Structures are given as C-alpha cells and as structure tokens.
C-alpha cells in the first residue's frame, strides 16, 4: 500500500518536473529571492532562478527520472517504498541544485544528493559490497564537500554575496577567486568522480541499476558539470583553475577509458565510461570559451540519454539473467541464446553503445564533435591547453570505441575463434563453462521496463540533431577515423577469442590499494590510538576515582569494630583534641 503510494508519487513528481521544464521553455530568465536574513553586511538566504541552463537540466532530469521511476516499477520488488521515496528525494535534490540561485540553497541540494546516493547505493544492504560501496561513496564525496563548503565561504565573502547571479568575477581579487574556485573544484571532482577521487563510482555498482542510471545520467555526477557551467563566468576568470581542471579532466578521461577497457562486468565498464565521458565535459568546460560551455552541455544532454539507456539495459541483463558479469553472460551467448531472448534489449543497447562510441549518425558523435571542434578552435589560437584537450579527447574517443565494441561483441556474439573463446574471462578455468545454464526461462523484460529503453534509444539518436546539424566535415572525418581506429583492434581481438587485460589496468592503476595504505591504514591506526587513549588514559582516571573510593571505604570498614570501648576512646580523644584546639585558638 505504502509502496504503491510512493510509486505513484515518484512517477508523478518526475512528470511534474517535465511539465515545469516544458512550461519554462522559452520564458525570460527570472530570479526570485526569499527568506533572506542579514548577517553583518552579508545576505544569506534562498533564491531561485530560471534560465536556459535550468530548463535544459530540468528537462534532462525529468526525462531520466521518469524513465527510471517507470522502469523501477518492473525492476524492483524489494523495499520498494523506501526505494521510490529516496529516488524521488534524490531527484528533488537535483532539482534544487538546478534551480537555486543561492550558494547555500545549492549546498543543501548538493548534500541531500550525497546522503541519498549513500542510501540508494546501499539499498541491498544485506550484501557486503553494497555496504562498503555506499560507505566509500559517502566518505569520498563528503571529503570533497568540505572543500566545496569552504569554496562557498571564500567565494561568497570575496564577492560579498551568496547569490550566484550577483557574483561578479571582476570585483573579486584574483587570489580569492583562484582559491575559491579551486576549493569548489575539489567538491566538483569528488561529486563527479574525477581523478584523484574517482574510485567511489565503480564501487557504487552494487546499487540497483536504475539508481546507477539516475546517478550517472542526470543527477549527482552531472551536478559537478552543472555547477561549473552555472558559475562559468567565475571559473573562466581564473586561469589557474581552468588549467587544473583541464589537467584533471585529461588525466581522468584516459585513466577511466583504460580502466573500462579491462573491466569484466557490464556495469563496471559503464561506470568507468561515465567517469571518462564526464571528463570530456570538464575538458570542454576548461577551455573557458562559450563554445566549450555549449559543447559540454550538449554532451551532458546526449550522455544523459545514452548512459541512462545503457544502465537500464544492464539492469535488464541483471534482472533477467541474474548477473551482468561477462563470464556469466558468455555462457548464454556461446549457445546463441542471449541475443534472441532479449531482442529489444539487444537493439536498444546497440543504439546506446553506438552513441557512446560516437558512431556517425548517433547523438554521441555530434556532441563529441562539438567538443573536438571547440578544442580545435582554442588550439588554433596557439593555446597549449587547447592542444592538450584536443589530443586527449581524440585518444579517448578511440579508446571509447574500443571498449564499447569489446563490450558489445563479447556480450552478444559468439566468437568465431576456437571453442568460443573459452578462457577469455574465466581466468583459465575452462571448467567454469561446463554446466549448462537453464535458458528456457530466459525472455525479455516486461513492457514497463522496455518502454523507457525504447524512449531513451530514440533520444540517443534524435538528440544529436536537436541542436541543428552544423557539422565540420574535417572534424567529422577525423572522428570517424578515430572510431575505426578503436574498433579495429577490438574486432580483431574478439575474432581471435582473446581478451588481453594488462594487470595494471585490471587493478585500475592500484589506486584503491594506494588509498588504503595512505588513508585507511593511518586512520585506523589513529582510531586505535584514540580508543586506547580513551580506555587507558581517560578511563584510567575514572577507574582510579572509583578504586580509591572502594579502597577508602574498605579501610573505614575496619573502624567499625563493634567494640563500645573503642568508640568511647575515639570520642574522648576527640573531646581532648577539641579542648586543645580551643586552647590553641583562644591563646
């Protein structure tokens, strides 16, 4: 009953967001401040605004949230009430971030998103990996949020206002500007899982797949991109921050794309690809030009469509097959079952992967080309930053195609190689494939889950043309060449039934063990030290007081002899002593 109420409320709320986006489309930008309070010479309070950015993000969030809510009706049966309530709250928090014009109001939505992501990643809290993944996500984003909070302070105090629309970078001293934006960047890096705070996102995969879709497509990680786009005038006024952002983005996109090439689970591949694609958006933003901002937002919208689609497809695999690990999926594929049983999923996932890879004609192709074009414009002016971004994005495009094709082929197609490529994912354990999987019950998902897939698949193609096609043929050609460059090795490896995964990539460059050694172990030592200090130093004083009392009372018990004469003697001595004392004082 309660679950039904929340289901209806969740879908209704998502549709309401869509309605608002439709109503606000084309309206003149406006702002409204309320509940302001004067603190010293600063005004702190709430403010909302509407402009193109808000409408764009509202539309994206509304579409993805609606798809996710409807999809979840079929996907999730366990603890549905709390799940739908949290997803709704999560969406509402993202909407808060999108519409707010006050840095503090934005912070509220930002933090509520962090809490909701923790709760949703830990939805299957019976599982150990879900619990640890949730805690990891919470700790890392919270660590980054400290920087974010201080960034708000620095920027707000420097600009003498906490209204985003009133912050004028020209009136802030350069040092304050750089400090504030760098601190904000820490929060953004944590929220959007960029290097060096990237490890939480892949580990958040044990959460329900629709939640992954929501986090990766529309909320949470997109919030970082949105924030920089929102504060673009401020960020672009600080060259240092843009340089740092560019370096972080370039390192992250290559790092994540390499990690995705070695991942052996569908959702993990997709998670790393999200990190990589976000980095592309950041690199576009780091160009500091209007073209760059436009490219980033374009890519954000198309990415939301195809990444949401891909995660929902992965959810179908999880729901119908029971696992999204390649080693399990291969058992069905080798017998030619998966593609035939899950036809709609196969088709939509193909569209999604093609869009992600940037195959010409799909949405990802156009948005990625916009980024490359913006970087080329910048690089042509002789900017080293522009060249860095250009080269990185091109390399990443090739890598993206590589891992997309690898995923597609290995998941859905039987390799022509000997014995169907046994051993590629079984770690040499050929016996893992011996048991015949029960594929008689394998069929496609119910229509409530497939409808969002189809809708998003249409979006993943159509969004590319939404901006008007103004293709630079030169860049289009280069991009297509890059796609082919990435596709060829993937195809040839698949044909040979081999999937070489360098150890370094499979371990994701050892980031997790390094953090464990650098942060977790010292913190645990500190915790142990604190516990020991509490128990052996502070507790010792407390226990000593108690022990002293006990010992003293044991001593005083001896005085209670029961002998009347002893008592009398003590009384007489007391009288004598009092007399002596009186004499001493009197004299």
């Amino acid at each position: 009953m309660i679950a039904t109420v929340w289901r209806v409320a969740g879908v209704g709320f998502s549709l309401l967001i869509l309605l608002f986006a439709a109503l606000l489309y084309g309206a003149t930008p406006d702002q409204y401040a309320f509940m302001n309070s004067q603190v010293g010479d600063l005004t702190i309070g709430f403010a909302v605004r509407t402009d193109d950015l808000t409408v764009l993000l509202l539309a994206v969030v509304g579409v993805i949230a609606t798809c996710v809510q409807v999809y979840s009706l079929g996907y999730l049966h366990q603890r549905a009430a709390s799940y739908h309530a949290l997803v709704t709250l999560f969406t509402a928090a993202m909407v808060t971030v999108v519409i707010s014009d006050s840095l503090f109001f934005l912070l509220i939505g930002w933090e509520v998103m962090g809490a909701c992501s923790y709760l949703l990643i830990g939805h299957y809290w019976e599982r150990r990996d879900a619990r640890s993944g949730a805690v990891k996500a919470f700790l890392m984003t919270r660590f980054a949020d400290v920087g974010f909070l201080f960034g708000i302070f620095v920027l707000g105090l420097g600009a003498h206002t906490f209204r985003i629309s009133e912050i004028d970078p020209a009136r802030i001293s350069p040092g304050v500007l750089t400090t504030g934006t760098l601190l904000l960047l820490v929060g953004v890096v944590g929220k959007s899982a960029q290097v060096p705070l990237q490890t939480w996102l892949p580990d958040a995969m044990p959460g329900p797949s629709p939640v992954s879709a929501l986090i990766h497509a529309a909320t949470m990680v997109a919030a970082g991109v949105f924030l920089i786009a929102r504060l673009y005038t401020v960020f672009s006024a600080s060259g240092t921050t843009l340089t740092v952002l560019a370096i972080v983005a370039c390192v992250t996109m290559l790092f994540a794309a390499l990690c995705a090439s070695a991942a052996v689970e569908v959702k993990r591949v997709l998670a790393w690809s999200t990190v990589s694609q976000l980095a592309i958006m950041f690199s576009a933003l780091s160009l500091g030009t209007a073209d760059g901002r436009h490219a980033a937002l374009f890519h954000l919208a198309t990415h939301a469509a195809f990444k949401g689609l891909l995660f929902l497809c992965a959810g179908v695999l999880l729901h119908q097959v029971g696992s999204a690990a390649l080693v399990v999926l291969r058992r069905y594929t080798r017998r030619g079952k998966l593609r035939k049983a899950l036809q709609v999923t196969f088709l939509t996932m193909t569209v999604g992967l093609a869009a992600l890879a940037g195959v010409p004609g799909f949405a990802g192709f156009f948005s990625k080309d916009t980024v490359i074009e913006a970087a080329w414009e910048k690089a042509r002016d002789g900017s080293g930053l522009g060249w860095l971004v250009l080269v990185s994005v091109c390399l990443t495009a090739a890598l993206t195609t590589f891992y997309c094709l690898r995923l597609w082929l290995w998941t859905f197609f039987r390799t022509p190689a000997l014995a169907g490529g046994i051993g590629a994912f079984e770690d040499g354990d050929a016996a893992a494939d011996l048991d015949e999987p029960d594929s008689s019950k394998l069929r496609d998902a119910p229509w409530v889950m497939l409808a969002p897939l189809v809708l998003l698949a249409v979006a993943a193609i159509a969004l590319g043309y939404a901006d008007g096609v103004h293709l630079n043929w030169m860049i289009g050609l280069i991009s297509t060449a890059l796609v082919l460059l990435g596709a060829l090795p993937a195809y040839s490896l698949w044909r040979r039934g081999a999937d070489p995964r360098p150890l370094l990539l499979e371990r994701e460059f050892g980031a997790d063990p390094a953090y464990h050694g650098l942060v977790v172990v010292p913190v645990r030592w500190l915790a142990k030290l604190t516990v020991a200090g509490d128990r052996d130093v502070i507790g010792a004083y407390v226990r000593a007081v108690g022990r002293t009392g006990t010992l003293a009372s044991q001593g005083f018990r001896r005085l209670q002899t029961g002998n009347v004469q002893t008592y009398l003697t003590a009384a007489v001595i007391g009288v004598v002593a009092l007399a002596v004392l009186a004499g001493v004082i009197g004299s």
Partner: protein
Amino acid sequence: MTTALFSVAGAVAVVAAVVVVVSRRIVHAALWLVLALGAVAGCFGALQAEFVALVQILVYVGAIVVLVLFALMLTKAPMKPLPELTTGRSPFAAGVAAVLALILGAGVVFAFGNEKIKPVTDGSAKTVGTQIFKNWVLPFEVLSVLLLAALIGAIALSQRKKED
C-alpha cells in the same frame, strides 16, 4: 584543720580509686570502691556538707555497692585474679586519661588558683531540705518519676522471657 582532714581523705580516695581500676580481682575492686566512695564522703564532710556525705554513704555504700556485688554474684564473677581484666588498649587509655587530667588540672589551676574556701556551716539537712522543697520542687518530682521509670525499666530488662 579541715584542709588536713580533706587532704587525708582525698589521698585515701585517690589510692582506693586507682586500686579499683587496676585490681585484677573484681570483687576486691568492688570492695575498694567502698573505700573510695567512703573517702569521698569524708571529703564532703570536710567541706561542711554533712547531709550530702551521709546520703553518699547511705546510697552509694549501702545500696549501689551492694547492688554491684549482687551483680557480680549473678554473673558468676571469679574470685581468683584475672590477668586479662584490662584490655590491650590500657596503656593508650592511660595516656588519654593523663592528657585529659593535664588539661583539666591546668585549667582548674589557671582559673581558680588563688581562690579560698571560707568555712561556713550551712550543710545541714535543714538547709538542703529547704532548698529542695522551696526552689527545686519540680526537678525533684521529675527525678522521682525518673527513678520510677528506671525501676520499671530494670524489672522489664531483667525479666526472663517465657518459654513460648
């Protein structure tokens, strides 16, 4: 004359009192108590308080000491000397008593060192009786009630309980 009489009686009282508290035979101690109390009665006499001295002899020597002797007999007090009649604390108790005596004696000497007693003869029964029944009637009556209460209390305490 009175001074000499008092001194002799006082010396006897002190010696007898010391024997009372150090004697190892309880019955002897009771008998020495008779002597000490009698000597104190002599002191009263030397101070021209004849009625008090007589009452002292009558009540103390005649009644109280006899009562004590009865109690000794009832509690089967041995006649032979008992080495452990005093407790192990006796040196300590002696010290306490000595200090007390020092303090009190010093106080008395400091306060009344130069005062003299003039021999006045007003200790007759008539004078005391007049005082009791003129000024102290109410305390006297209260005291008689107290005596009655003590009598009843002593009977109640020493009564054996019934077997049931």
